[in-house]
């Protein structure tokens, strides 16, 4: 029995080492850039890093990222000026675009659509909510004042959970030595990425619920919570724009109207907040607009959204103030 347990243990370790080698040789695991919080309390990537982002099993999506001097994924450096027309795209992982080669990003597509008459600065960072975005714009006010159009990505259900900005410590914990060392194990990253570790993560919860036999909240309670959430989200939105400022002449929200409740859309319209509805073009598309393995936009999705933004910009630039 001892021999069996010992040999099984040895074999498991040797196989894990082999798997780590396979994952590294075939580059199945993604690279992980380091993050930091700068002097203005803005969380971003450490400048000048390059690597590859991998999504799904068998490398379904493989793309290169490049973190510029400003700490964001882009092929260009950000040097805002009053001479050129500049556009800032601010948002979460969708804008960050690790799922596409950095030289073929959403911003680059917009520049191409506009015949390179505009410079697009992509301030995308995975996990940014509206508080992160509006704080960033406020913290770098001097730079953003020089930018002609600021497009802020807003996903209603995720991005308005707080009405004030604070550094998200949970994300920064990922820079702790333990997590940094775990990230060096590429096999772990790959396994986590494809969801094979999900049963392990969920197992303690399953055991607890098996013994406790917890009953879920009723539909009525859920409905009440939803009403409460709507009021809270709107309050948070108002709080953030009053605290950090919002220039309606230059700022525009990038929203999927079909995923945003009508009362919030009414509020935006009544208060003259401009928005670009990217959901409309995605919903119309007959070919998939997202990746296989997650819901981030694929190349086709990005092309459609870039076109929507370009159309808006052309209209905006050509409209006299």
């Amino acid at each position: 029995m001892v021999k069996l347990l010992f040999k099984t243990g040895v074999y498991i370790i040797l196989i894990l080492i082999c798997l780590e080698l396979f994952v590294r040789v075939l580059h199945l695991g993604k690279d992980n850039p380091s993050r930091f919080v700068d002097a203005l309390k803005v969380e971003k990537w450490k400048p000048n890093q390059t690597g590859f982002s991998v999504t799904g099993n068998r490398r379904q999506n493989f793309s290169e990222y490049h973190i510029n001097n400003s700490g964001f994924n882009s092929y260009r450096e950000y040097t805002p000026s009053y001479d050129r027309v500049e556009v800032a795209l601010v948002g979460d992982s969708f804008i960050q675009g690790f799922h596409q080669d950095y030289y073929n990003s959403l911003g680059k597509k917009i520049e191409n659509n506009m015949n390179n008459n505009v410079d697009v600065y992509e301030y995308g960072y995975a996990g940014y909510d509206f508080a992160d975005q509006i704080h960033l714009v406020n913290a770098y006010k001097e730079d953003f004042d020089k930018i002609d159009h600021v497009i802020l990505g807003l996903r209603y259900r995720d991005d308005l959970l707080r009405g004030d900005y604070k550094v998200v410590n949970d994300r920064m914990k990922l820079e702790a030595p333990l997590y940094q060392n775990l990230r060096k194990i590429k096999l772990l990253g790959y396994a986590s990425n494809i969801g094979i570790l999900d049963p392990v993560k969920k197992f303690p919860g399953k055991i607890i619920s098996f013994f406790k036999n917890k009953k879920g909240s009723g539909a009525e309670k859920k409905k009440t919570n939803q009403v409460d959430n709507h009021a809270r989200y709107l309050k948070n939105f108002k709080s953030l724009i009053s605290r950090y400022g919002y220039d309606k002449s230059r700022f525009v929200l990038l929203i999927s109207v079909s995923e945003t409740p009508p009362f919030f859309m009414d509020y935006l319209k009544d208060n003259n907040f401009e928005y670009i509805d990217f959901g409309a073009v995605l919903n119309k598309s007959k070919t998939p607009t997202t990746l296989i393995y997650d819901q981030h936009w694929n190349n086709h999705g990005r092309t459609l959204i870039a076109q929507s933004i370009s159309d808006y910009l052309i209209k905006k630039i050509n409209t006299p103030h």
Partner: protein
Amino acid sequence: MLFNSLEFFVFLIVVYLLHWIILRKSLKFQNILLLLASYFFYGLWDWRFLSLILLSTIVDYYVGIQIFSSSKASVKKAWLLVSVIFNIGLLGFFKYYNFFIDSWVDLVAMLGYNITNTWTLKVILPVGISFYTFQTMSYSLDIYYKKLKPTIHFLSFATFVSFFPQLVAGPIERASNLLSQIDSKRDFNYKQQVDGIKLIVWGLFKKVVIADAVAPIVDDIFSNYQNYSSSTLVLGAIFFGFQIYGDFSGYSDIAIGTAKLFGVELMSNFKFPFFSRNIAEFWRRWHISLSSWFQAYVYIPLGGSRQSKVITIRNVLIVFLISGFWHGANWTFVVWGLLHALFFIPVLLLGKNNTYKTGIIAQNTLLPSVKELLKVCYVFSLVTLSWVFFRAESIKDAFGYLYRIFGNFSFEAYLHPSGYRMIDYYVLILVFVLYEYVIRKNERAPFQFKNKFLRFFVYAVVVFAMLLFYDSGVDRSFIYFQF
């Protein structure tokens, strides 16, 4: 609790350690542990149906003793009928009641009478009912045919009926094999344990990598067959063959491997059926525990092939039709069985049903002869054709599917429904077939390589393939659980 779930492995490790460390000195306590573990394992699906297993256990335990102790043949027969009626009754009610009512209503409607169907019931099919009812019935039948003496240990018999590695989808064991092992002291055998672990790994590979990888493709093609070209429909049928083989033989390997961990040897259920050279050989290699059950308890009692040709053909037809019907309450399974009977009868009439009773393709050579290869391809084509009926939702769909293949053949490259590269799947199936060919001589030793490094490399590649083809979005349940 599925074999391919984390819960099962935690459960298995706990039961294993209790069995071999805490309770190793007492067979009685080991059997109590196995019984409780089996009831817990089954109860996690639906604890209410534990009562059915218990009832089936009590009935056949008692019937077995009564058959054995009765001196009159008529009394023996009467007790046997109790077992058969009870078990078939259970199966009939839970599995076939609604089917018969619906079919009767349809038949009446075809004759021009419309009746409102208010007799169908909301019946849940208890998992594994087709397997454990056949297993308990075989116990009473073996005693009746004087092949077996009944056990007086209820605990052993209950463990035999509910032994968790093979409870929900077989192999359908005979008491002469399994009960005797449960009744005897089991020693910890290092080689047996290692063989068990290897079979579990190989079974998991077949399930996670082969069956689950092609499942979304098969589902897509069969659900939307009206929109696909002939070549895609052929691909769907071929892939379904690999899906069901990977799924069921993978399950069987895990079951056999798990049983080995407790010192129990179960019968083999699959022996590389896709390398069969005629349909008779296929049935000696596919779902062996079921086909041998039907042979022993239906075909031979009916007279087998010892009577006239007409009676033999009748017997073959009966066995295959019942076998098809056993798989599910749908006419598609009956047609599937009928097709196999039609494939089998010419082989039987030509006296070639025992040609490949032993040995396997390229028994003493590295490569098969062209003749052997052609025969394998021929059998594979017949079997693939029959899978269309097995997989289709209805007879109409099955014929529609076949009509689109044979009506006007067209070719079109197929794209994966989720956008994955299809070449990965073609390579996967090709490599799998080649590997199965390499290990074809022993279904119980999938990693039988003398070179240690090669063997280790194969282990690593097999586990790596699971990582490569793991898809969290796929339904991971086993196909045969629904039967």
